[in-house]
Structure formats: structure tokens, C-alpha cells
């Protein structure tokens, strides 16, 4: 996955940037020491995250991507995936679905113990599922993924049986996610605060300390025995320690990597990825997230997007390909799918997304938006064709916000007024909850195509008690609901693929969404870091195989 790029002579962009590049090139040359090819044990790696610091290191609680990132280093799941997307054993050695699909027997390895010394066994898995389903845990991602699990049963010491309310074709996908990683049952009995501070798992590293707002310190688990099947080596990790820091400012983060203060950064900005290409000292790891693609959802639940013609007109009016090229420096591929490109069942339909302003104008005229006001916006019955677009600055990187600005500018030609409102996460959720939006871009990461059900089933329009719901496009189509429900239950792979294809076709042809690109997940890595790969599950990097070549 690591892309080694040669130093290419490049036009300097202005004097300052030029000298930056020059300095980097020089330092790159001088530090090119004779490279060792055999892994070397020891050393401390510094990871700098641009995500918000998690409020809890236990990914059962809540369940977001920053938690997945860090917990990948100390927690492990029952199953994993290989790079072909096939489920492979991890803490579970094998599994068996019952004929009616309503129960699963999962056999665990018998040679794994948690870092607090307790044994991994069926009771431990039961305790974990209970923990996720306990309202007091306030689990969100894990809780949803276990939606069909009604009860658990220990068949023997190392076999656990899950009882389901309905067949779940995505169960293994779900179990592979870090949000359902297995923790020590003893540790889970501690108070929630204690467990959040230092969860206990079976992973290659152990949470040693967490100084809030500063860093999480992870040290090597010297009794590690359970690498996933696709790992590069056996035994304990090479690194002694990982410093997991939080540097929200992207420019500082990149500068720190350049200065050698940190070894790996996430949320790398496109321009820095581009700049890093020109150096020897920094490499890129590109690991698009699974689940949904990054897309703009059109709220079909209210005017004017309750009219399919207006939705299509908007999508035809938005010219984004040039913007993606320039803003992302070629680091992002345009997507025409509702799903991530790493999802095998994703359907790409470019034909729905060709830009055509003329067509857009025709559609709008047909939909009754014929007049234009003196600012050039279309008007119908005295109401301007105005679209609210709340943007979560926590979730959309600056380049993406800039892309939205460009969409705002290009759709203006067709007469749309797009009102961009960047806001913090709370306000953003607030705006969604109050249905005060026509356009929205919300990432959703989940392993497998079942994410379609979460995003487009009409059940997902009903908000949770907190006001949150996932069906932001407010797609309410009985036909689609039926397809998605069936797909989540069928065991036959071909039938499942066909159902998801039909479902995606309905969503795309209904112009409910404007796909942009995969959920960007770029890491910049010092060249001293060897052996880094992203987990094929949710694309979080794992440092188990990593060693420092310096």
C-alpha cells in the first residue's frame, strides 16, 4: 500500500514554497542512510492525529473513527478481512451460521489472553456484546451493527452462540469493525470512566497512559499472540512505544512531520500530499474508508428537492470535476457511486452525473422555477430557489469546503442560491435534527454494503431520541425499503449482490445524492517508518508490523 514516489523535478511555486521544497530535498538526500531490510525492534513512534481527541478510548462508547484509529493498536476483533475483502479469522478461529440464519456459532482461539491476564473465552465475548447493548454504555455505531442480535449463549468455554431476530448477511462485516472489538470482561466491569481511560484488549500494544488534550501513550504488549492472519510477522510488535498525539491544525501537523517531530500524520491535506511527492523523506499511505462514498445528499423530504426534476437539475448544474482535480491535487478520484470504491458491491453510474447546465435549466423551467430575480436566482411563487447547506467543519476538510464553494458558484448559473453555513458539530447536528437543510454532506463508515440500509431505508428518517438519523436524503421509497431489507437477510451471495445493485440504481437514478469521491483517508509517513499498512476492515493503520529504520 505504501507508495514510494521518486523525487521529480518540479516547478517551484513561488520563492518561499520553493525554499521549503529545496530544504526538504536536501534533507532527504542527506538522511538517505544505508537502508536496513531486516526489521529492527525498538524505538518510539509518534503519531499525530488531526481528528478531535476521543472522549473515550473504548470504541464501544459512542463509536467514531478517531476511536477506531487508536483502538486498532490495542483492541482486536473476532474477525478481519483480507485485501480481497474476504472475511478471515482473528480472535475467532471459525464460525458457522445456522440454516435458518437466526443463530451463529463462533469458535474462539483458546490461546489468547487479555493484557490484564484474563483468558479470552465465550463469557468474555458475551460480556462485550452485553456491554455494547447496554444503554448505559451509550454505544452508537456498535449498537446499530448489533441491531439484530437478541441474545448470546456460551456453547462451551470457547464457543459463543449469537441469536438473531432475523438473518443478518452483514454480521461478519459488522464483527470485523473496531467498534465491536473484544475487551477483557474483567476490565469492562470497572467504571465507565476507568474503562474509557484505558481499555484492556488483546492487541499488540497496551494503553499505558492518557494525558487529556496531549497524548495517549501506548507500549508494546510483550505477551502478544494474536496477529490477524494477514499480518507480516508473528510474535510481539517491533515498536517499544507509540506516542499518539492530537494536532488539530493541519499546517502544524505537516510542519511537524517535515521537522521530524512526528512520524505519521493522518488527515493529510491534498496540497501537502502533493508536496510530499517531491520528497524522499515522506511517503503517502492512501486508504479510502469503506462504507459510503463522500457525497452530498439532497433532502427529498422538503421543498424544493421533493421534486425529482429539481434534484436532477441541481446535480446537472454542479460542475465539480475541475474543482476536485485542482483542490485535491489529483489525490482524489471522482466517484459516481453511493459506496466506497473498496466495496465490492458498489455500483458506479457516471451517466447520472454528467454536467449539463442547459438540461438543468430545462428541468427547472419544467418544474415551475421559470423566473429569475435581479440577482439571477430562480423564483417560483415569490420564493427564491434557495438551498440551505450546513457544513460540519469537523467532518469536511478545507479542500472539501472549497469544493462546496465551487458548487455554490457553478449552480448559481442555473439559478440556485446555495447558502453555505460552516458550523461546529453540535450546531450541525442541531440543524439536521431541525430539518433545516436542503443539502448536506455526512460521512458514514461501515464495513460492507449494508450501509445502504442505514442510509436509505425509510426507517432511518425517524430520529433517535437525540434527534439523530442517518437518512439525510430522506429517501422514502417502499420498493427500496423492501430491497434493502431483503438484501440484509439473504445468504446467497449472488442474490445479495443483485439486490444491492437494484437498490443502488434506485438511489442513484432518483438523484438523491451527488457522489464526490471516496472518504479520503490519507496518511503521510516518514520514510523511516517501514511496514505500515491499513487494516482492510475500516482502513485504520496498524502499527503491529511497523519498525523504524533510522
Amino acid at each position, binding site marked *: 500500500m505504501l507508495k514510494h514516489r521518486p523525487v521529480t523535478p518540479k516547478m517551484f511555486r513561488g520563492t518561499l514554497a520553493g525554499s521549503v521544497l529545496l*530544504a526538504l530535498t536536501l534533507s532527504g538526500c542527506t538522511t538517505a542512510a544505508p537502508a536496513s531490510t531486516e526489521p529492527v525492534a525498538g524505538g518510539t513512534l509518534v503519531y499525530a492525529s488531526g481528528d478531535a481527541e476521543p472522549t473515550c478510548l473504548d470504541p464501544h462508547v459512542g463509536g467514531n473513527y478517531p476511536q477506531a484509529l487508536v483502538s486498532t493498536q490495542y483492541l482486536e476483533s473476532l474477525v478481519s478481512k483480507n485485501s480481497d475483502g474476504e472475511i478471515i479469522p482473528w480472535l475467532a478461529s471459525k464460525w458457522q451460521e445456522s440454516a435458518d440464519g437466526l443463530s451463529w456459532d463462533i469458535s474462539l482461539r483458546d490461546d489468547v489472553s487479555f493484557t490484564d491476564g484474563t483468558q479470552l473465552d465465550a463469557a468474555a465475548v458475551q460480556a462485550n456484546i452485553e456491554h455494547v447493548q447496554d444503554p448505559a454504555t*451509550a454505544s452508537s455505531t456498535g449498537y446499530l451493527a448489533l441491531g439484530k442480535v437478541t441474545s448470546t449463549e456460551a456453547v462451551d468455554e470457547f464457543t459463543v452462540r449469537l441469536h438473531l431476530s432475523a438473518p443478518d448477511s452483514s454480521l461478519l462485516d459488522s464483527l470485523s469493525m473496531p467498534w465491536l472489538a473484544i475487551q477483557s470482561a474483567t476490565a469492562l466491569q470497572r467504571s465507565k470512566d476507568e474503562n474509557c481511560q484505558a481499555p484492556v484488549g488483546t492487541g499488540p500494544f497496551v494503553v499505558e497512559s492518557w494525558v*487529556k488534550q496531549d497524548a495517549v501513550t501506548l507500549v508494546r504488549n510483550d505477551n502478544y499472540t494474536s496477529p490477524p492472519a494477514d499480518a507480516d510477522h508473528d510474535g510481539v510488535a517491533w515498536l517499544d512505544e507509540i506516542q499518539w498525539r492530537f*494536532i*488539530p491544525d493541519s499546517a*502544524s501537523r505537516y510542519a511537524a512531520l517535515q*521537522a521530524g517531530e512526528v512520524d505519521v500524520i493522518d488527515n493529510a491535506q491534498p496540497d501537502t500530499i502533493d508536496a510530499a511527492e517531491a520528497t524522499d523523506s515522506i511517503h503517502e499511505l492512501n486508504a479510502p474508508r469503506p462504507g459510503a462514498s463522500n457525497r452530498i445528499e439532497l433532502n427529498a423530504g422538503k421543498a424544493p428537492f421533493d421534486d425529482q426534476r429539481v434534484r436532477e437539475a441541481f446535480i446537472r448544474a454542479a460542475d465539480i470535476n475541475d474543482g476536485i482535480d485542482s483542490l485535491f491535487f489529483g489525490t482524489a478520484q471522482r466517484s459516481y457511486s453511493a459506496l466506497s470504491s473498496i466495496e465490492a458491491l458498489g455500483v458506479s453510474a457516471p451517466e447520472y452525473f454528467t454536467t449539463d447546465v442547459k438540461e438543468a435549466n430545462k428541468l427547472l423551467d419544467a418544474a415551475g422555477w421559470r423566473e429569475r430575480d435581479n440577482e439571477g436566482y430562480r423564483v417560483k411563487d415569490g420564493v427564491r430557489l434557495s438551498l440551505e447547506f450546513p457544513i460540519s467543519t469537523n467532518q469536511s476538510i478545507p479542500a472539501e469546503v472549497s469544493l462546496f464553494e465551487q458548487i455554490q458558484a457553478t449552480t448559481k448559473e442555473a439559478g440556485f442560491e446555495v447558502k453555505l453555513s460552516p458550523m461546529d458539530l453540535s450546531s450541525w447536528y442541531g440543524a439536521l435534527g431541525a430539518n433545516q437543510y436542503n443539502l448536506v454532506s455526512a460521512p458514514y463508515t461501515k464495513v460492507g454494503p449494508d450501509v445502504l440500509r442505514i442510509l436509505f431505508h425509510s426507517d432511518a428518517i425517524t430520529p433517535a431520541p437525540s434527534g439523530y438519523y442517518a437518512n439525510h436524503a430522506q429517501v422514502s421509497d417502499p420498493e427500496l425499503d423492501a430491497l434493502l431489507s431483503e438484501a440484509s437477510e439473504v445468504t446467497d451471495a449472488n442474490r445479495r449482490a443483485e439486490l444491492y445493485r437494484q437498490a443502488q440504481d434506485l438511489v442513484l437514478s432518483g438523484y438523491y445524492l451527488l457522489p464526490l469521491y471516496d472518504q479520503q483517508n490519507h496518511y503521510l509517513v516518514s520514510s523511516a517508518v517501514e511496514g505500515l499498512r491499513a487494516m482492510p476492515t475500516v482502513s485504520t493503520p496498524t502499527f503491529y508490523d511497523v519498525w523504524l529504520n533510522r
Partner: protein
Amino acid sequence: MRAARWVVSRIAGGAFVLWAVATLIFFALRMIPGDPAEAILGGPGSQASAEALAQVRRDYGLDQPVIVQYLTAMGRLVTGDLGTSYALKMGVADLIGQQLWNTLSLTVLALVVAWGLALALAVWASRGGGLGTRVGSAMEVVAAAVPHFWLAAILILLFSSTLGWLPPISTGGPLGLILPVVTLAVPLAGFLGQVMRESLIDALEAPFALSARARGETENGVRWRHAIRHAALPAISLSGWAFGSLLSGAVVVETVFARPGLGRTLLNAVTIRDIPVVTGVALVSALAFILVTIATDAIDRIADPRLATS
């Protein structure tokens, strides 16, 4: 005796202000729209269940009447208990305790550096004659007008990215402190420098300076033995305010340089509406501000005995 009375009255005044700040913030933050219980469970994105919300309301006493909540909070405050962070689920006092030293060392160092810079700038501007004064005052004006985050960006671009001399983020070592401290200190030095230069030039023209020169004192002697103390006085009086502005600047600087500290904690807490943390940080910085003000006033009285007697 007089000094003791002064100290006691200042401390009493400070305690009052602290209580008032706590009360004001307590009621002001109650006006935030939205359910605190939801914020505790991770905000609207958390999909918290109704049972979980009810549980949290009980746990945090949010089902009590406001007045009871207020009295409970004040009662806890007296014992130094600032409550529990909604998001981090840890004692706010502990959280602040972890961060306090970082911010204090940053701001106090910046204050010292700003003082040094301002003094150097003022002395240089006062001795250079026409050109020196003009260049010096221009530098002061520019320094005072520079936004922290912009200066930080430029400094990082120059000293980290281009020259590679200094780390762009705080590393725990002394080297990592240089850029944040300079970023904080420069605008303040511009302010203090303007004040110092004015009073320095005034002091150099004062009758006592003439007396000293007539005694055979050198210009440097007049400057360092006499004028500098007079120049320092208004800057000392301003130091309380200066410390406050450094606390403000720390919010920005800690974010840019990825330094753990109160400013960043506050900023995070504000964006996720973590009310106990907002309250706690506000209270602690008010306390720090009050203490520093008392200290600078005390230094003022020592440096200028006229204040203590008048």
C-alpha cells in the same frame, strides 16, 4: 499594617469577583439551547436512548430545580470541586490541574520575554534620535497589530519549514517553547514598548534627569539608574491586563502549536458545549487574572512608593 490591610482587602475583593464570575457563568450557561444530558452522552450524534438520558439527568442532578443545582455547584466550588467534564468524564479540577502548568509556564515566559523585548525596543527607540525613534515606534505599532495566529503561521513557515531550526509543535522540551512564547510575546511587546518608550522619553526629560546629568552622570547612567524605573511603572500597571491578553492569546497559540493547555481545553469545550469545563477554565483564569493583578499592584506599590502613601 497598611500593607496588610491592603492585601486583605484585595483578597476579599478577589473572592467576591470570583463568586460573581461563577454565578454569572452558571446562569449564563443555563441559557444554552439544548439538553445538557445529551451533551454528556456525546451530543446529538450519539443517538442516546431515552433511558440513558434519564439516567444521566439523575446522575448529574440535572433533574433538580435550578436553584438547588446552583447551591450545590457553589458548595462544591468552595471545596475546590469544579464538577465533572461532560465529554472527558473526568474531574474538571483534575483536568485543569493537568493543563494549568502548561499554560502558566507559557504565559509567564511570554510575559517575561515581552517585557524584555519591550524594554530593549524602548531603550533603543529612545536613544537612536530621530531615525531610531521612528523605526522603533513603527516596529512597536506593527508588532501590536499582528494577530497571533498569523504571526505563528509566518514563524513556522520561516523557522520550521524553511530553516528547520525550531520544531513547529510543542515537544515538551525547551526548544518547542521558543516559537509559542515568541508568538505570544511579540504583540504584547509592541503594546508595552509603546507605553514604555513614551514614559522613558518623558523620564529622560524630567527635572531629576537634569539633576543627575548636572551631577556628572552619563547618559547611560541616567537611562538605567533613573529613567528605566519610571518607564517600567506604567508597564507594570499594565501587566495585569497583559497577562489577561496572554491568556486570550494562549487559546490561539496552543491550538496552532498543538500545545496542551487551558486555552485549547477551553476552545474544545466551547465547540462541544462541555459546560463544566467552560465554567472551570473561566473560573481558573479569572482566579489567575485576579492573583496576577494583585501581584502587579503589589509590585507597583513596591516599585513606586508614592502609590502606597497617597
